[in-house]
């Protein structure tokens, strides 16, 4: 079945000029807040913007869509300059946080909306929209109003609506945050499949590291309006470069000075501590380890390795069958995962003082 | 959404009611009851046709001057509106109407004390707008095709009088509007919306130069008699009788004549 050419122009000559996909530099100022972000996404690539609330992720997305003006910079998609165009002429598909399906239109009419705006004839738009609904598995919901759809269904309709205009850039703003944890897993994998089938560039905004890991080919971590780390999801997760990312992926992270197999770490309250590692590095480094790598004792462990310190228990939280113990320095604050049995045996309550030990083999050191 | 809209409707309805209430006021001058009671004096309440506003106000001042401690309070308005208020029990002492028919509705309900007396006569004249001055010199001219004429509604006393005059003159007029009262007719002519209208001579005189008054002989057939009566339920029957006497006196006639009224 042939698809009609949409009037959206992706001029060949212009495309030849650029590398294809998205190339952008976004400078947005809003009061005290300033966003300064360089961003690229190759055709077929999904780039996730990850960051805490107020980091400027959504602002970046809205700037790409033309809903927020650029103070400076450029936006090119397949070599075509978009930053001077109003939103309706950018030919971008966007999936909004609460999907924003038009409540007065049926699912089919929602999907057909963009095509109608491009001047495609009504019967034709309905046919194409029906195809898209079928593709997202919602053919039988064509006449349903958005109110009658579940969160997951609404998300799929919103995705179909954005893709129906055959955009060369797809923007997704927290596409899973409106869903409950139960349906999220299933919807996430569905979204992953559909994004894999999309041949344009895609930018995804999320504050959930798991969404980012599963959906994105590349991560850009944004903090305070600036990118602080870029890379493949696995690399970012393994070697976080900021406290925020480390906490997201559940790692203990420190900055320090490496001297061969010893890292002098900056601890709590100006305290310094030397940790033994197995990697051989020199200079400014990050040192990271998993909470499970920390062992806790009531008294100083026998024949102790060098990586031992005494800390105060700040909090004890249960996570499934593990218990996370938050240790407060000086010298070193860290998260440690232990079994419930250990909590009882060690009488781990907030305020208690314990010994913490870390095997050198469990540490990861990489240049800062 | 619907809830919000409903709340909004409620607010708007409230605004509408307020606006209507504001709009409704001001027809009848209705001073508050305590106004005249100061210094322990007596208060005389007179309901009079709107066309008597100027004359009766000056007669009221004369009355107060002659009766120290007495305050005269006026309710001016459309004769029939006033008549209805009186029938419904409004506490008034004297009623002066612009037509005998209206006075009859009051007398028939037994609300008047004694026989009403005619104290003045008002004659119809043609009020001509400034722009149309000279185009109208007789009643017959009102039948002109390109002339915009306004008359009182048939239900109003002035409309009744106009009908009589036109019939007496054998003139057929196609008015553009039949206004609710004679003041409204005058306003339309004064503002130039209408070229001419039939109003009372007193109205033209009160409009002092803004419209031209054209007298016509047929108006003899359509004079309006103004009756006055003391009301049966008058709180101040003695003062009421004295006020009626003043209106009928030579002094009263003079004041009325100055305003354009004729003696009965």
């Amino acid at each position, binding site marked *: 079945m042939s698809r009609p050419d949409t009037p*959206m122009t992706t001029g060949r000559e212009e495309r030849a000029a650029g590398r294809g996909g998205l190339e952008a530099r976004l400078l947005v100022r809003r009061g005290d807040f300033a966003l300064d972000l360089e961003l690229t996404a190759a055709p077929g690539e999904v780039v996730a913007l990850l960051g805490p609330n107020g980091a400027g992720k959504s602002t970046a997305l809205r700037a790409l*869509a*033309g*809903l927020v003006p650029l103070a400076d910079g450029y936006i090119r998609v397949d070599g075509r300059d978009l930053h001077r165009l109003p*939103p*309706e*002429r*950018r030919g*971008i598909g*966007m999936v*909004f946080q609460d999907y*924003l399906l*038009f*409540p*007065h*239109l049926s699912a089919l009419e929602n999907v057909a*909306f*963009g095509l109608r*705006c*491009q001047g495609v004839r009504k019967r034709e738009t309905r046919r194409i929209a029906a195809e898209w609904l079928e593709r997202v598995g919602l053919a039988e919901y064509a006449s349903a109003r958005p109110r009658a759809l579940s969160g997951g269904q609404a998300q799929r309709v919103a995705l179909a*609506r*954005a893709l129906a*205009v055959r955009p060369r850039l797809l923007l997704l703003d927290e596409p899973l945050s409106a869903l409950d944890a139960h349906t999220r897993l299933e919807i996430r994998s569905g979204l992953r499949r559909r994004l894999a089938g999309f041949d344009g560039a895609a930018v995804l905004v999320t504050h959930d590291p798991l969404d980012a890991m599963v959906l994105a080919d590349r991560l850009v971590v944004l903090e305070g309006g600036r990118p602080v780390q870029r890379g493949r999801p696995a690399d970012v997760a393994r070697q976080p470069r900021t406290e925020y990312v480390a906490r997201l992926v559940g790692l203990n992270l420190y900055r320090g000075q490496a001297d061969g197999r010893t890292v002098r770490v900056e601890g709590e309250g100006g305290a310094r501590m030397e940790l033994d590692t197995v990697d051989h590095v020199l200079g400014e480094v990050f040192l990271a380890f998993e909470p499970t790598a920390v062992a806790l004792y009531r008294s100083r462990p026998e024949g102790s390795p060098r990586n031992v310190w005494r800390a105060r228990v700040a909090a004890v939280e249960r996570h499934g069958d593990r218990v996370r113990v938050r240790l407060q320095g000086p010298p070193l604050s860290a998260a440690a995962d232990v079994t419930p049995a250990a909590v009882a045996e060690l009488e781990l309550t907030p305020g208690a003082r314990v010994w913490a030990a870390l095997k050198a083999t469990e540490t990861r050191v990489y240049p800062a | *959404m*619907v809830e*919000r*809209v*409903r709340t*909004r*409707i409620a607010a*708007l*309805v409230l*605004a*509408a009611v*307020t*606006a*209507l209430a*504001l*709009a409704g006021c*001001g027809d009848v001058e209705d001073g508050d009851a305590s106004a005249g009671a100061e210094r322990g004096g007596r208060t005389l309440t007179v309901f009079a046709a709107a066309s008597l506003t100027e004359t009766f106000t000056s007669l009221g001042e004369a009355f107060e001057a002659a009766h120290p401690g007495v305050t005269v309070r006026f309710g001016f308005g*459309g004769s*029939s509106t006033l008549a209805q208020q009186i029938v419904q029990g409004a506490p008034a002492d004297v009623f002066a109407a612009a037509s005998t028919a209206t006075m009859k509705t009051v007398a028939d309900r037994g609300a008047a004390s004694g026989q009403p007396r005619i104290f003045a006569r008002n004659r119809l004249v043609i009020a001509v707008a400034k*722009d149309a001055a000279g185009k109208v010199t007789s009643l017959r001219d009102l039948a002109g095709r390109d002339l*915009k004429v306004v008359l009182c*509604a048939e*239900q*109003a006393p002035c409309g009744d009088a106009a009908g009589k005059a036109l019939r007496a003159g054998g003139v057929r007029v196609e*008015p*553009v*509007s*039949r*206004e*609710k009262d004679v003041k*409204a007719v005058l*306003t*339309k002519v004064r*503002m*130039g*919306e*209408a070229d001419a209208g039939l109003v009372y001579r007193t109205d033209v005189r009160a409009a002092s130069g803004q419209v031209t008054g054209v007298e016509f002989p047929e108006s003899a057939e359509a004079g309006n008699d103004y009756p006055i009566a003391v009301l049966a339920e008058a709180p101040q029957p003695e003062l009421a009788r004295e006020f009626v006497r003043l209106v009928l006196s030579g002094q009263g006639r003079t004041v009325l004549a100055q305003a354009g009224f004729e003696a009965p």
Partner: protein
Amino acid sequence: MRAPAGGASPERGFGRRPPWMLVLPALVGLGFLVLPPAGLLLRAPWSTLGTRLADPRVLEALRLSLLTATAATGVCLVLGVPLAWVLARVPFPGARLVRALVTVPLVLPPVVGGVALLLVLGRRGLVGQWLDAAFGVTLPFTTAGVVLAQTFVAMPFLVISVEGALRAADLRYEEAAATLGATRWTVFRRVTLPLVAPGVLAGAVLCWARALGEFGATITFAGSFPGRTETMPLAVYLALETDPEAAVVLSLVLLAVSVLVLTALRDRWLDVA
């Protein structure tokens, strides 16, 4: 008329009685609103009602009233909805002043509104004399003049209602439409308007009701002539001069028709939305 019989009893089952501080004024308020129309019903000359209703002047006035009120509502929609949109969506210097000006007809006594219309659109008015000279069009004493007077007093209801709905509407839907390629006009037509439809309808209903009851501005600006400018409220007023019973009958007709239309509209639209 659907007047509640006896004291309105609070909802059982909730176990909590509504506070008398609210119920008492509510009942007084309800009585205040319901009793005057009920008085009309009680005093209606039922025996002669049939013959009075058959009077062609009554039907003529009713026809004119329905026609002009509907036309005025139409004009209000065509001009008022865009005005509300501008007030709600386009920031401009002096917006607050303009918003206040829009509500002036609400507080202006309608008779004053009529005079103001005469001064501007009358035969000697600022715009009116030009209309007369250029096109030979004069508005006073015409049915169009009635529509104009009604539009003047009724439009604020529509503008306020629609502006409120526009302000309450979620702007992000319009953004979503824009990213899908909709021009501003398409966004307004296909997204904004449907979203604020309940507000538009509520405004139109108020507008129509206000236009139907309009008296002061109409008689001042358009005068009164049967079949041309004499609407029901004018007929009621004039009837009051000589025949109060006829006035009651006319009022009842106006009341019945408006209640009928408004309930029909509300059942059809507002409850569905």
